[in-house]
């Protein structure tokens, strides 16, 4: 390599590095700019309509120390988690069962697709009427909202499995259960993770909305209670905490996706 080529290579490496720094700097800069805009906007709108970010931060610290914030977070996460587990179990199991009975599938498919269109939040009053005012109506809401994206993705994923792989597995002696577990499940994992990216934040939103309407604990209750007491800082605190929770869940999901789908050749670097 000549001196000139070496110099060019070093220049290229520096340029690549500089571009990476530029992205990081841009991200941080944008975050700071948004915080400043929030602060200026809050000052202009007044404390009744928008909370000061500094006060929100102080509230998060004081409520964390008193323990009340952690309790609300725990209640909401538990509700979202249990509801998610129920919705996810049915969303995965039902397409696998329907795979065994193709004629029944064709008969019920239009009804399932029609039920996607029912606005789930509008069912909450019915759920309260039917299931009381404990956790049950909220679990129904979370479960249903999680069920649909997962059911649709897994259903589509099963149809998308390469027939050649299934034939190969049959010829070498795999049972139907093994084919479901090894071939179909692995082939639809990318679909499943895409659905999780929709379903997990949805579970949290649904839990919070459920808590607006029923109950006396949780982040949703905290936001609604603050609004009733004209405590705008409390409302903003709840929103900020919920957003942070969604971001944490998404980050965990991205890591899990990378782990399970490491084999994928193309979209290894693609994420939402």
């Amino acid at each position: 390599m000549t001196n000139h080529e070496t110099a060019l290579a070093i220049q290229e490496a520096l340029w690549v590095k500089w571009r990476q720094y530029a992205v990081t700097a841009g991200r941080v800069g944008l975050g700071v700019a948004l915080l400043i805009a929030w602060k200026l906007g809050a000052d202009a709108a007044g404390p009744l309509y928008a909370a000061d970010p500094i006060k929100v931060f102080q509230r998060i610290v004081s409520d964390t120390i008193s323990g009340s914030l952690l309790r609300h977070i725990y209640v909401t996460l538990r509700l979202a988690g249990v509801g998610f587990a129920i919705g996810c179990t049915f969303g995965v199991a039902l397409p696998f069962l329907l795979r065994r009975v193709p004629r029944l599938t064709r008969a019920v498919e239009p009804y399932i697709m029609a039920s996607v269109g029912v606005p789930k939040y509008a069912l909450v009053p019915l759920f309260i009427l039917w299931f009381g005012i404990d956790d049950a109506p909220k679990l129904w809401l979370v479960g249903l909202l999680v069920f649909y994206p997962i059911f649709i993705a897994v259903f589509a994923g099963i149809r998308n499995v390469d027939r050649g792989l299934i034939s190969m597995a049959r010829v070498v002696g795999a049972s139907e259960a093994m084919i479901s577990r090894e071939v179909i499940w692995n082939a639809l994992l990318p679909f499943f993770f895409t659905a999780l990216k929709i379903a997990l934040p949805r579970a949290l939103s649904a839990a919070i909305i459920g808590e607006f309407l029923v109950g006396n604990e949780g982040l949703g209750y905290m936001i609604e209670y603050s609004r009733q007491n004209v405590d705008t800082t409390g409302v903003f605190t709840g929103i900020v905490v919920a957003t942070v929770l969604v971001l944490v869940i998404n980050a965990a999901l991205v890591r899990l996706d990378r782990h399970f789908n490491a084999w994928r050749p193309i979209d290894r670097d693609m994420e939402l």
Partner: protein
Amino acid sequence: MATEALLEVRGLSKRFGDRVGRDPSPWVIQDLSFVVNEGEFLTIIGPSGSGKTTLLNMLAQIDTASGGEIRFQSQVAPIRDPKSLKPGLACKIGYVTQEDNLLPWRTTLQNVLFPLTVQRRLNDETRARAQMLIHAVGLAGFEQHYPHELSGGMRKRASLIRTLVYDPPVILMDEPFGALDAQTRTQLQEDLLRLWNLGRKTIVFVTHDIAEAIALGDRTLVLSRSPASIAGEHCNPIPRPRDIRGIMIHPEFGALYHRIRVQVQ
């Protein structure tokens, strides 16, 4: 050579299911009969679209027949009803398909071991056999690679030894080397003959390449254009072991090639 019929095809016919609003679908295969003997390397040659893959799918018991019967070890195979099909007939019929059909989320080694895993036959002995095959086809060092990290030729080798590893008495091969460059193909043909010489399996090898059919087979069947039936049968006088790279200059090659060429339309 022992001439015991291992696989018998009698009057086999196939047409695909009719659909509403279409003319009845034509026969893909009609009245096809032949016999495969124990330990024989049979090559079947036919033009593209002559129903070669359909024939192998029926032999492998993953597709139904519309008429006729298939006997394996003198037993009639249930091939008329999709529900009674027994794919691979209890692991006795191996099938190397045109596509490699490797599981993309499994490594080379896991793919090769896959039949043993599902048959619950994974032990030190079978693992050692898998390692031997991996070395024999030059995949050593690529055990932990995923299929998409392998070249086309390497994927073919992996798919080939995935069938050899569980040692089925009959192996069906559907143009396994069709999509490869000439060099890689010759290399794989040599690998295949070498492996075949180790333990003489019964092989039914389908191809559209006349030279390949002659180079590999003990006997070559020619399929007619659709509907497919047997247009000719040629015993191959070229002795083994054969030199694949020099097969074209063997004195018997030219005449045999010409006889087959006339029948392949």
